[in-house]
């Protein structure tokens, strides 16, 4: 049996996928979910072979949900209109269904998936492309244990590189996210955050004092090292 999870906030949008799936004898819908949080739980519980995922959803969107999964399952995206997401899908040869879609188009997507069982690394590349192209980042979604936390970007004090992860420091401690410093440097607002060192990006408004050319003191008492180019960048941003 092939296990499938449907994730879409509109009940009718789920029902049409369920209806179309009825013609496949070997498929079982393990769960229908109305948002990304439920979706994550369902994926952890059922380990589905395939998920149908809407992009625009409450709280966290489809991409943000996938980002939080250690090993994302194969995905067929369903979306009404999102030029930017469509470009990303096409670039990474991941199938997507534009709402409203016909039974024929749906069958074609299923056929394609059955043939190649879309490789998970495709999903990784897609997420990378999506997040690096997105406009300015307003929030970071992280997972702590079994709960999900949405951190508004202005609450991030600083970012610190940590092997394959980035430590996101807030006043409530730090959270880990599997991303590169490069990614954050590219998507953060340059007037608010500055990469002052290979391993550090700080929020400018958190600076208390620049002691010397190689260290900056933050409001919470943390000392962050400055690289030479970081010092130059910082001076430029502060207009010194």
């Amino acid at each position, binding site marked *: 049996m092939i296990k499938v999870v449907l994730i879409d*906030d*509109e*009940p*009718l*949008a789920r*029902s*049409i996928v369920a*209806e179309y799936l009825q013609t496949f004898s070997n498929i079982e819908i393990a769960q229908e979910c*109305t*948002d990304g*949080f439920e979706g994550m739980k369902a994926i952890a519980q059922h380990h589905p072979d395939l998920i149908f995922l809407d992009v*625009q*959803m*409450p*709280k966290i969107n489809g991409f943000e949900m996938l980002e939080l999964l250690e090993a994302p399952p194969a995905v067929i995206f369903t979306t*009404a*209109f999102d030029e930017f997401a469509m470009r990303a899908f096409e670039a990474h040869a991941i199938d997507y269904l*534009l*709402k*409203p*879609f016909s039974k024929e188009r749906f069958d074609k997507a299923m056929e394609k998936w059955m043939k190649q069982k879309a490789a998970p690394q495709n999903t990784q590349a897609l997420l990378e492309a999506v997040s690096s192209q997105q406009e300015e980042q*307003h*929030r970071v979604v992280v997972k702590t244990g079994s709960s999900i936390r*949405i951190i*508004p970007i*202005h609450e991030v004090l600083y970012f610190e590189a940590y092997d394959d992860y980035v430590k996101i420091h807030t006043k409530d401690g730090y959270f880990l996210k599997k991303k590169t410093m490069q990614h954050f440097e590219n998507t953060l607002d340059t007037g608010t955050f500055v990469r002052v060192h290979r391993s550090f990006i700080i929020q400018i408004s958190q600076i208390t004092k620049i002691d010397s050319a190689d260290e900056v003191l933050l409001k919470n008492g943390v000392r962050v090292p400055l690289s030479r180019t970081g010092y130059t960048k910082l001076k430029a941003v502060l207009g010194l």
Partner: protein
Amino acid sequence: MPIVEITKKRIARTYTIVWTIWITVQTFILTYIGLDFHQALIDSIVSNSLTAFLGIVLYNILQYYQPENDNFVYLRLWAFFLAVADIAIANEVLKHVFSYDTHYLFVLHQSLPIRLCFIFLMLGIITLLNWVRYYYLNVQETIERKADTEKMVREAELSKLRQQLQPHFLFNSLNSISALAGSKPEQARKMIQQLSDFLRGTLKKDDQQLVPLSDELQHLNLYLEIEKVRFGHRLNTEIYCDESLNALLLPSLLLQPIVENAIKFGLYDTTENVLIEIHTRQEKNELIVEVKNPYDSATAAPNKGTGFGLSSVQRRLYLLYARTDLLKTKAEEKHFSTTIHIPQP
């Protein structure tokens, strides 16, 4: 196009270096043809400083006056006139300084034509470089201006589109109809009817038109019915409107984007059921409409409140009434409210 910055400081430095080099060269040439070093140096400094000074004068003139292509003849004449004046002054000064030395005076006299040519050439080069510089600056400015204009046009176009219709709404509604067509054809037909009525209403009205509140609410209801089919039990709405307000006027299609924003805000910022409240009242000579939606103050993006929908409403109100205080938003712990004030004619 890479932008090379040519600062005044850099120009001044280069200019000084070039002239210093040339003063040195001329000193050695004059020594070579028989003047003693002391004389050669003074000659070189006097004549070249004068030319350098005239070069600066030319530079300053050209800052305020840019010749058209056919005025170049005048510019050359100017340069020639300056060169003659230059040589005359230099000649007098040097004659005065070395009046005792007949050999020097002879060399000075003999070299006048070549000096004149040289000065004319130098001033010509300075003019040309100036022209190239201004041409370059001009091209740069044109490119920047063009990019700015294009951006403005694009933004205007985008906001116009946004005001009309959100493609998300249309395609998702069609998707719902597609789902209903299989299981509940009667409901599908009803929704097609509602969607058609809504679209017709949207197309019929123009931006400048004022409509009675009752009409606007009717149109809004069509929209809400469709959204309720899409989102099922998650979306609930409540409209409070006293009959006495029905005839009050407001710009057509003003409420729908506000409510659309509230629905999006409410539905995408929380995972619970959502109640959108629409309150209407009259205060003095104004119709006041307040739209309330639940939201989560902890995770809402800081600028979300004045999203695309609201900024186009604000813009329209400004264009119609020349006031910026007619749309207000308020964020409380659990609720977000948008209020518009419509002055009555």
